[in-house]
């Protein structure tokens, strides 16, 4: 047994993935060196100095995640994975794997940690980008050479002038088509990269709070979320959609102050948007649903309605006193949160 523990320790020192082995109550039994690096954050104590994982990760989220794992223990190869916010700019992909012996849970959980890299999934792949630049250069070259030649030889024959005009027209037309193609390609590329992540509602709230709080042209107050639940969505789309929606409403009601509140209601999560001022008509919201999302100087590849449908979100106008707009999300795995 001692030999096995020694080997296990060496393994944890050398593997490149972040691993924490803990008990069901979060007490840490072993960690890999990579886990310390991944969990390194100015606002948090070093992993080596803490006894419980809940001193680093949100204890309520951790508890809900362990419940979710327990719910899956009967499944073949049980596991539960989710995304957690470590700080305003760092998100982790976390995999929970139970230690089983003869099919029985041994009160030990392996927590696999991986940092999510943000910038890569918003960029156009270099190969596509390079090829586009080359094609644009080529068409511009045709236009530039034709214009410069016409300027250099102002007395050229009318037939030749016609020929050069045609070149400029054709090349400009090809460039326009190319711009459309590039945009289409970018949209498809982005769509394929927008993966849905399972994240706890507390982290959803904190994420949106961080990002929307930095908007100079919106004044948003959040009421703390009541209850626990998991939501499945892509952060980029959600942030852009909410910003788009709040800014459209602001322009419509001439008021930039909002109160936002998440609430768990059975198998639904409500995001209530409250403001002082006139109500929004349903026709107007339907019109916004057809628009491509533009917010925060970003253009999103989807319309607001497409983001809603992708996340199975519905909306209600003025469902209760003071609540002007309610977005209704389905809870991911409704029975897997702590009471």
């Amino acid at each position, binding site marked *: 047994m001692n030999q096995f523990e020694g080997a296990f320790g060496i393994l944890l020192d050398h593997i490149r993935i972040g691993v924490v082995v803990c008990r069901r109550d979060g007490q840490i039994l072993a960690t890999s060196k990579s886990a310390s690096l991944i969990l390194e954050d100015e606002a948090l104590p070093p992993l080596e100095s803490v006894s419980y994982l809940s001193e680093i990760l949100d204890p309520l989220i951790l508890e809900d995640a362990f419940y979710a794992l327990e719910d899956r223990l009967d499944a073949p190869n049980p596991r539960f994975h989710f995304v957690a916010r470590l700080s305003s700019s760092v998100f982790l992909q976390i995999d929970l794997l139970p230690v089983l012996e003869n099919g029985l849970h041994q009160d030990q959980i392996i927590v696999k940690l991986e940092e999510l890299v943000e910038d890569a999934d918003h960029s156009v792949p270099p190969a596509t980008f390079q090829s586009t*630049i*080359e*094609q644009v250069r080529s068409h511009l070259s045709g236009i530039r050479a034709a214009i*410069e030649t016409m300027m250099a030889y102002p007395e050229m024959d009318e037939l030749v002038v016609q020929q*050069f005009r045609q*070149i400029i027209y054709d090349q400009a037309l090809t460039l326009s088509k190319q711009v459309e193609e590039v945009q289409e390609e970018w949209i498809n590329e982005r769509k394929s990269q927008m993966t849905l992540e399972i994240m706890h509602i507390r982290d959803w709230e904190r994420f949106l709070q961080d990002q929307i709080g930095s908007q100079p042209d919106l004044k948003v107050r959040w009421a703390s979320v009541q209850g626990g639940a998991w939501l499945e969505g892509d952060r980029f789309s959600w942030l852009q959609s909410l910003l788009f929606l709040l800014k459209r409403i602001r322009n419509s009601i001439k008021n930039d102050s909002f109160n936002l509140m998440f609430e768990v209601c059975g198998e639904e999560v409500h995001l209530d948007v409250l403001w002082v001022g006139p109500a929004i008509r349903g026709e107007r919201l339907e019109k916004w649903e057809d628009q491509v999302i533009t917010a925060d100087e970003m253009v999103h590849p989807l319309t607001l309605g497409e983001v809603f449908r992708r996340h199975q979100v519905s909306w209600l106008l003025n469902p209760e006193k003071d609540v002007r707009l309610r977005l209704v999300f389905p809870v991911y795995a409704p029975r897997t949160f702590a009471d």
Partner: protein
Amino acid sequence: MNHQILIVEDEPSIVITLEFLLKQKGFTPQIARDGIEAMTFLENHQPDLVILDVMLPGKNGYEICQSIRHETRLDRTKVLLLTAKGRVADVEKGKAVGADAYLTKPFAIQSLMDQVDQLLAN
């Protein structure tokens, strides 16, 4: 002028402009619209200058330039590479395959004609 010039370019708009400019200078350029056509021409001729696009159907400009440099019969032929590839690595590649000059698209026609004059003077 007795200089023979071959333009290897698949983009018609560039071909028309280059042909016009070279004719204004008194040359009668030959045109090849892809790599294979260029190689066929080079098997039977020894042009003084090849204005060579890099991205071509059939055989690319780098390959054609290498073939010219491996052929002793074409020792006196100068190669001016035209390309939309503007990175330093691409220019280095052009030099490595033996090009005498390299112009990145979109180029100024004055730069192009200066290069033509300079290469033919050498």
